[in-house]
């Protein structure tokens, strides 16, 4: 069975699902993502509204994104224009998070290359600040 990885974009960081889950197909992966989204949103108020999930296959190829704001029941009372604005903003925020994480990774790698070039050892942290 194919394995899917469900990564979470929260405030400016990506939490990775390294182990992944075996699921029969993409449809099952979408269902699973929806369930996990609901569990993360449950009783969280507005705290998780800007989060999103990006799902990859075992080769690391992106399959689909799921934006929490799209399924947030508390937004149902808002006007369509408001919901559209929230939806667009969350997508931009998700893209910004991806860029921030990529920039961080590049900075870390550059530091390693420089250290190696100077013949110095360097400690690298892969997560946390």
């Amino acid at each position, binding site marked *: 069975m194919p394995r899917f990885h*469900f990564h*979470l974009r*929260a405030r400016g*960081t990506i*939490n*990775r*699902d*390294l*182990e992944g*889950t075996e699921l029969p197909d993409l449809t099952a992966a979408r269902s*699973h993502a929806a*369930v*996990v989204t609901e*569990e*993360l949103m*449950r*009783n*969280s108020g507005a*705290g998780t509204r800007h989060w999103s999930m990006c799902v990859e296959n075992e080769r690391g190829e992106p399959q689909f994104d799921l934006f929490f704001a799209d399924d947030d029941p508390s937004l149902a009372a808002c006007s369509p224009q408001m919901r559209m604005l929230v939806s667009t903003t969350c997508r931009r925020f998700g893209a910004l998070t991806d860029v921030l994480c990529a920039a961080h990774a590049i900075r870390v790698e550059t530091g390693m290359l420089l250290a190696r070039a100077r013949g110095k050892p360097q400690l690298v942290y892969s*997560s*946390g600040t």
Partner: protein
Amino acid sequence: MANPRAGSNPYFEMTAAGSDRSRLPPLGAGRRHENRVLASLPPGDLALLTRHLHVATLQPGAVLQHQDHPLEHVYFPHEGLVSLLAITPDGATVEAASVGRGGVVCPLQQSNQRHAFLTAVAQSAMRVSRIAAAQLEVVLNESEAVERALRACRETLLLQLRQNLVCGGLHAVEQRLSRWLLEAADRLESDVLPILATQEHVAQRLGVRRTTVTLLASRLQEAGAIRWGRSRVEILDRARLERMACSCYAGLRERMTPLLPVDPVRATQPPAG
């Protein structure tokens, strides 16, 4: 799940009442029982129990009692953690309470048809003392101290049930996870939780998907509160983890503390003879 009948159960290693006493050092003047409830009993009352207590070693995953099946034994853990689960017909689980060496996996119902209220599962390899439920009944009638101790245990289980009802219904999973880790550490009396803490395992206790636990564990680790290794979790910053937990953690601890067993006052006189 394994059948709790001792003879055919691969998860149990049983010792007969006579032989285990010959293997363990005798409970003499200085040595206290590893289960804190038993250790808190006056020696005369404890003796009424020990003649019926058998020591067993449980393997991880051993089932002590099945929800709605006849209750055969009552268990006093020496170490480790026993998880009390409520189970749906299709096998989904949620943890209702947990018991370590500071408690007893005691009956909750008072009806004549004594059935187990919850399914109890050993979380790791652990030693327990167990007594046949029928024999415990007899001792409860003979000893007020034992009756009082078991009543306090029942109350702590009911308090846990009440708190988990509130928590599961009203609080975010990240807070519930933080709280679960803190309470497991408290019952195990250690900030390092061993093999029992795989993410799949914790997911079954909280009633959520393993993916959800993975993502939230990553957030807790990012915050510096924990380190989640291959199959163990270490609490690095207790204060931070407590801030990330819901009010249920502090609230329950406050209510349970007066019910926990206290160390007996040690006799100061030297033993006679």
